[in-house]
């Protein structure tokens, strides 16, 4: 029987932009066990709710993550709106959907680039990030911020997108989609990419569900869970079906994200076409008194904001469960059997966001 050794992976590693640590127990080059540790950059943002008024906390929620920042603000705002029975105007719901899908686009393109880099495909990395820049340009044009948008607020949105800009965005979508499909073609059909990713880090449908996997990690294993199906924001009007793959390996998780890029482009196109006229927000009166588990589908999966108001301007509790935290147990189950050289690719395949996890 080969001798077992423990190899530390992270918290500093070339493929990890943020710190997470794994103790990898190896037999020769094969992983037999992985034990995760987090907490290197824990920020205590949940406790900050005691110091900030509920209207101000939108800004804090947005800063939980630099990639899905808009969706954290959206999840928090929707939770407060549910507690306070605030009806958000239609135009605000559509604008929220457009900015959410722009966030998903730039998150997935960022991940595709990092994933390509992780497998040593540098040109693909650069091409992915080049396309991501055009999404960030749209976010900057329409909100003023590339990463932190600051447009979502309780009761609606702060900024509008004018008809001229919407038409310009609509015109740009066809050539952008063509470029994304060319990029996706490499991820889905290139033989070296397939050879690197197929049958690697496999997790079955039953395991993914039982372990509470979220987002593309669950959908790559055939679990058709996508919170956009509940119709929040404008998803109910636009109609939506989750992208699902069944193989449960790194390739399947990659394929889900590639196809979700196409789905996001389609959702933005339809949201622009069906954009209603009307106000951007409603006035918020009073303070939240009650509780709600607000859920939104972020690029990495379902995020939960548990919000509890006590009738004052300061909430009694905000508890945030991010998708990466939910995807750590599936990651621990994916790694045994993988070669040490494949560990970076398997870890990246869940799209770990430690900033979110260390809220």
């Amino acid at each position, binding site marked *: 029987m080969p001798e077992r050794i423990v190899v530390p992976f992270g918290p500093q590693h070339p493929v990890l932009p943020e710190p997470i640590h794994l103790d990898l127990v190896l037999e020769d080059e094969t992983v037999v066990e992985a034990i995760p540790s987090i907490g290197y950059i824990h920020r205590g943002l949940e406790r900050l709710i005691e110091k900030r008024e509920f209207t101000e906390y939108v800004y804090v929620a947005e800063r939980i993550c630099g990639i899905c920042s808009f969706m954290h603000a959206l999840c928090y705002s929707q939770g407060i709106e549910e507690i306070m029975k605030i009806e958000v105007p239609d135009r605000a719901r559509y604008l929220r959907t457009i900015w959410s899908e722009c966030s998903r686009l730039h998150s997935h393109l960022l991940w595709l680039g990092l994933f390509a880099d992780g497998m040593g495909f540098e040109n693909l990395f650069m091409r992915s990030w080049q396309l991501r820049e055009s999404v960030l340009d749209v976010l900057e044009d329409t909100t003023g911020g590339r990463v932190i948008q600051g447009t979502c607020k309780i009761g609606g949105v702060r900024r509008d997108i004018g008809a001229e800009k919407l038409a310009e965005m609509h015109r740009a979508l066809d050539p952008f989609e063509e470029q994304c499909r060319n990029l996706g073609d490499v991820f889905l059909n290139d033989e070296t990419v397939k050879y690197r990713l197929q049958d690697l880090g496999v997790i079955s449908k039953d395991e993914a569900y039982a372990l509470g996997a979220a987002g593309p990690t669950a959908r790559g294993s055939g679990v058709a869970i996508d919170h956009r199906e509940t119709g929040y924001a404008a998803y109910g009007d636009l109609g939506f079906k989750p992208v699902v793959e069944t193989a449960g390996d790194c390739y399947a998780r990659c394929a889900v994200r590639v196809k979700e890029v196409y789905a996001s482009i389609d959702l933005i196109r339809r949201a622009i076409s069906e954009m209603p006229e009307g106000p951007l927000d409603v006035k918020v009166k009073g303070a939240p008194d009650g509780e709600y588990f607000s859920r939104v589908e972020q690029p990495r999966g379902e995020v939960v904001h548990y919000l509890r108001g006590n009738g004052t301007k300061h909430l009694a509790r905000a*508890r945030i469960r991010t998708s990466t935290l939910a995807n750590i147990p599936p990651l621990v189950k994916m790694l045994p059997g993988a070669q040490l050289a494949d560990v970076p690719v398997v870890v990246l395949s869940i799209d770990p966001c430690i900033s979110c996890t260390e809220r």
Partner: protein
Amino acid sequence: MTVNEEQTTIGVALEDLMREVEGLQTGGYRLVQIGCTDIGGAYEVNYSFDKGYQFRNLRLTVGPETEVPSISGIYWGAFVYENEMHDLFGIPVAGINIDFKGTFIKTAEKYPFSVTRRGGDRCRNA
């Protein structure tokens, strides 16, 4: 097609927790999260589950010294939430499948930094 989301919260006694959780697991529910709320002198622990966007929440209320049984034998992935619950709130959890004994959330402050009870923490895992 839009699916209507429903949320229900039911209180559960400590002695009934495992039976209720087993019932949900048998019924095909997935574990969404476990979270704590400090309600002044006691903690509310929310065990959240979902099946087809139907959200069920078991609410357990415990004192600061009460030991809570781990549900990681039923839901393997519960260890992340239970270690977090111990590290951030000082709630002792018995029988976690991967027990970090207070080092899951590594902080400069001695864990559990949210607990300021006189006499310090008496967690079993300490």
